[in-house]
């Protein structure tokens, strides 16, 4: 209950935030990314953090939502986007059920490997089919819902916030329910769980479906927000890894870990992308702008955010495997 109260308070604060910062598309854009990554990572966390089933292919569910929505809206421009979101959930659920039915009978390394294989099959299929726009991707010219100004970023800020709150709410509820206990039991020891009456594949599939459905909603929202998608934006393995990394850094299997991770990683990536970090180093006088290092930083740091992700992943696994929140968790 304490957690539900905390979610409500923070959600109220986040709700009021756009009023405080006013009309600033750049900042709002970053905030949308933070909310989206926090929600993606929280949705992944239900499966990966609580049930202990590390999916390395969550991009498939994100892409399923984004592609279903944009393909439908290109063919039927007057369709209510919410129907597209619902159909996206169905598409993602089908992929999830196929993955689950193949691999949840197996243990160990297999789920991780198979989740990548499924995601790659989805990615390559989308790339090779014509109706998906292939390598060109899909561009959506116009979209409308309830007369909202969808050219402004605010509706998407609130949309992402809503999904995040719902995801956190589901997670908080799960933690105190039979399903949540069962998922954690599966994570800790599958034989013990099974011997205590837990139907392993039912509960794994259940958590995968919840996780995939939420991820697909976020994909749909992202598609409506950006209105241009291609496989490298919504179906890439890199996205799957970013989702996991966000959870790891914040703290896997904790309610707030993914949010903390997103608050740290998304702005960091943005700073690298916009070369804020390189500029700061130069401005602070630490590196001369004309020196070889200065030029190198200026030219390359913008492309280096994946490299930085790699370094953070390695450091995090070696020194902080329980994430930032793991540091504060009381030792029983």
């Amino acid at each position: 209950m304490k957690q539900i109260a905390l979610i409500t308070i923070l959600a109220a604060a986040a709700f009021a935030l756009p009023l405080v910062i006013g009309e600033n598309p750049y900042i709002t854009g970053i905030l949308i990314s933070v909310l989206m990554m926090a929600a993606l990572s929280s949705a992944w966390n239900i499966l990966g953090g609580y049930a202990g089933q590390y999916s390395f292919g969550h991009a498939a569910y994100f892409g399923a939502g984004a592609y279903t929505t944009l393909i439908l809206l290109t063919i039927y421009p007057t369709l209510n986007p919410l129907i597209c979101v619902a159909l996206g959930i169905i598409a993602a659920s089908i992929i999830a059920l196929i993955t689950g039915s193949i691999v949840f009978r197996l243990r160990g390394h297999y789920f991780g490997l198979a989740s990548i294989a499924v995601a790659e099959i989805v990615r390559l299929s989308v790339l090779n089919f014509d109706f998906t726009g292939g390598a060109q991707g899909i561009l959506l010219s116009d979209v409308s819902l309830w007369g909202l100004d969808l050219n402004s970023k605010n509706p998407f800020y609130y949309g992402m916030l809503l999904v995040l709150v719902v995801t956190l709410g589901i997670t908080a509820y799960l933690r105190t329910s039979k399903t949540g206990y069962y998922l954690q039991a599966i994570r800790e020891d599958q034989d013990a769980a099974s011997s205590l009456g837990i139907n392993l594949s039912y509960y794994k599939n259940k958590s995968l479906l919840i996780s995939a459905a939420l991820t697909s909603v976020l994909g749909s929202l992202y598609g409506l927000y950006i209105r241009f998608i291609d496989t490298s934006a919504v179906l890439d393995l890199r996205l799957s890894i970013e989702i996991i990394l966000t959870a790891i850094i914040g703290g896997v299997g904790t309610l707030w870990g993914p949010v903390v991770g997103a608050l740290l990683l998304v702005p960091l990536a943005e700073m690298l992308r916009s070369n804020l970090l390189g500029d700061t180093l130069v401005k602070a006088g630490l590196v001369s702008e004309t020196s070889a290092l200065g030029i190198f930083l200026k030219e390359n740091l913008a492309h280096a955010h994946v490299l930085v992700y790699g370094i953070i992943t390695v450091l995090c696994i070696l020194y902080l495997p329980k994430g930032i929140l793991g540091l504060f968790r009381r030792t029983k």
Partner: protein
Amino acid sequence: MSFLQPLLSGILTGGVYALAGIGMSLVFGVMNISNFAHGDLMMLGMYLAYFAFTLLHIDPYLSLVLIIPTAFLFGYVLEKLLINRVINHPHQNQILLTIGLGLIMSNTALLAFTSDPKILTTSYSSSAFNLAGGISISVPLLLSFLITCVIITILYVFLSKSTTGMALRATSQNREAAQLMGINVAKMSAIAFGIGTALAATAGALIAPTYYIHPLAGHSFLLKAFTICVLGGLGSVVGAGVGGVIIGVVESMSSTYLSSDWKDVVVFMIFLAVLLFRPQGLFGNKGGQS
């Protein structure tokens, strides 16, 4: 086109895949780690061959004499410094660590060598033997296949005859028992990772003359190597060898009779089919539901 042509090129390419698959399987067997940096290690091998050729003017196949020890050392040190620290961690941490290392390798390569693909052109790159029946065999493919056979033979003899080789196999069979028998399993892990790296880099160097060399080239090979390992049974070296050839042939057949766009999809479908119907692999007895 004759059925034999894709079969033959499939077998030749598959040999090189087998090399990559064996490297991964050995690491899996001895260390029980899924190495997600394997593809990127292959990519490093490709660049090593490329720079040996362009800077030092060494033939890519001859450069193996330099690449193999370099890669072994690199893998050995990598294991000692980083990988062994997660050897008793949950699988997902091992996977994430190797993913992180892979990202560091590929993105460092991206910064250092840019994303422009490089092409390694030797005097015999596009030459081929023409056999009866209109079948032709590409010279670089044939050479790399022959070298693969030599390396696999040496590896086989090493694993079955030498003391270290036997210790490696014992560790792979049962890590705890091997330790009780007085085998230094920590050292075996480092050696296995060194050999795995050397095999990945060799596979990379061998395909360098026939592929585009670029920093993200490792990704598609990573999943291929996993498919090969699962097909052969995770941890089984012989299985990975056969698995490699099967995947090479499947790929070549699907390019010929389906479309080269879909060949990777076919490979991953096989991967899932193996998990569904024969999770212990065609030859393996480790892993699966136990």
